[in-house]
């Protein structure tokens, strides 16, 4: 408490300090009834206070002195005979000062009134100008964004067309050769043409993946949702991937529930998700391994698990596999890929309000789990496609 008071005291200006000290001395002298000294200190204190008030910019100090002065005066009047004169002087001076100060404030306000109005007007105009300026800038920025969006769409459309056209020409030429349009091919010629065809297919898939991701990211992917049986999609996807699994001597094991598990989804996108996961499992499982595809209903959700006995991943790689173009170190030795398939699968699952996650142990295999909301009740006469509706 004392420290705080001392701290505050030290921050005061010299004049205020002097006024306070003189006031204290005055009170002490009044208390001890030292008449001469009281008068002296009273005069000095009043002079200091007078100076302090007129040279200070802090109105609080003014009111502080007024209150202190009145209290001291009353005390002096009430309890000491010598303090009567001083008390009257104190009250008189403070009353005059208060009146003078009030008058000064009002007078200054009147003097400043016209310029205040002008200032207010200028401030208003300034504010309005700033608001219009910012609004204009925002409009411009918005127009620029819309323009950029249009350019992006146009670029995608053009890039899509310009990349596919030469690919279509190469693929068409290779197909014609394979078909024997230019005569029967020898075994060696066939192998060369096959090699070129595989590369073109790979490039085509890569371009399709990049364009697909770009469409998803820019929110241009439109879902054409119908009520479909998730089980039917999984079954047909397994059927489709059977030759690839057999070619790599991989056992595909279905572990599917009896229920059709209806979901409200875009069939082509769900086919893509399931296909990506099965394809991924086959690619990264060495010969004689197994890929198990399990499907069941769980807490109002369809739960698809694709379990492989493949190369697996280190824990730190598990989160990175959803990133674009990311490929684990081991995967690069085992199979070709762009590192986009799983990114697309994740985006598509999330577009369907589902979740996808992976659990993996390096050298032992991986389990990819997809959860999608099941439709509780099928709406009668709802628009259905041929997938079990």
């Amino acid at each position, binding site marked *: 408490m004392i420290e705080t008071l001392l701290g505050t005291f030290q921050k005061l200006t010299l004049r205020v300090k002097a006024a306070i000290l003189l006031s204290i001395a005055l009170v002490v002298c009044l208390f001890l009834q030292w008449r001469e000294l009281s008068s002296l200190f009273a005069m000095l204190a009043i002079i200091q206070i007078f100076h302090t008030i007129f040279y200070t910019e802090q109105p609080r100090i003014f009111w502080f002195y007024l209150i202190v002065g009145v209290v001291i005066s009353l005390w002096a009047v009430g309890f000491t005979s010598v303090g009567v004169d001083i008390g009257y002087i104190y009250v008189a001076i403070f009353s005059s000062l208060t009146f003078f100060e009030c008058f000064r404030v009002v007078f200054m306000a009147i003097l400043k009134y016209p310029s205040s109005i002008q200032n207010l007007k200028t401030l208003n105009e300034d504010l309005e100008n700033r608001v219009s300026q910012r609004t204009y800038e925002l409009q411009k920025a918005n127009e620029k964004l819309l323009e950029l969006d249009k350019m992006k769409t146009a670029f*995608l*459309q053009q890039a*899509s*067309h*310009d990349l*596919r*056209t*030469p*690919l*279509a*020409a*190469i*693929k*068409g*030429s290779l*197909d*014609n050769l*394979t*078909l*024997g*349009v230019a005569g029967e091919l020898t075994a060696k010629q066939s192998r060369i043409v096959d090699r070129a065809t595989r590369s*073109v297919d790979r490039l*085509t898939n890569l371009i*399709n993946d990049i*364009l697909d991701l770009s469409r998803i990211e820019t929110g241009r992917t*439109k879902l054409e949702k119908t009520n479909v049986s998730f089980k039917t999609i999984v079954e047909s996807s397994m059927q489709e991937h059977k030759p690839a699994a057999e070619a790599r001597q991989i056992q595909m094991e279905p572990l599917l529930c009896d229920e059709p598990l209806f979901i409200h989804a875009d069939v082509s996108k769900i086919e893509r998700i399931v296909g990506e996961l099965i394809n991924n499992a086959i690619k990264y499982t060495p010969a004689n391994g197994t890929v198990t595809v399990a499907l069941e209903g769980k807490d109002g959700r369809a739960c698809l698990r694709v379990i492989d006995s493949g190369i697996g991943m280190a824990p730190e790689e598990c989160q990175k596999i959803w990133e674009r173009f990311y490929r684990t170190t081991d995967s690069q030795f085992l199979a070709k890929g762009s590192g986009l398939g799983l990114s697309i699968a994740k985006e598509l699952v999330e577009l369907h309000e589902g979740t996808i996650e992976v659990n993996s142990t390096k050298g032992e295999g991986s389990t990819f789990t997809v959860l999608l909301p099941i439709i509780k009740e099928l709406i009668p006469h709802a628009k259905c496609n041929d997938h079990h509706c």
Partner: protein
Amino acid sequence: MPNATIIIVDDEEELRENLLDLLEFKGYHVVAFSTGEEVLEKYESIQPDLLLLDIQLPGIDGIEVLSRIRQKFTRDELPIAMVSASSIPVVLTQAERAGANRTILKPYALQEMLSTVAELLGDKGITDG
């Protein structure tokens, strides 16, 4: 052997020639054009059984050609498959709305093209052997 007549329209020479080679090899009678104007001028005199029409064409584009032909011939009277290198869904939807029997995306798989052609020609198509 009843050779069906197919008109192919594509401004990309390589694609046009490839498709021409393929379909001729399969025994169809093929007439190829590179612009929409040409095909609109000549298709009626050729009396084709099927049109394979590229969407992005210089001048009158594929959708416009399709719309104009549809003013005279229905989907059943003259089947038209639109072929496009653009995978933008809007473009494909536009084609279907304008009266396309099918849309085929480039680069197409050989079997996809041949089976689409056979399906759209129906009885008019040729059978191997």
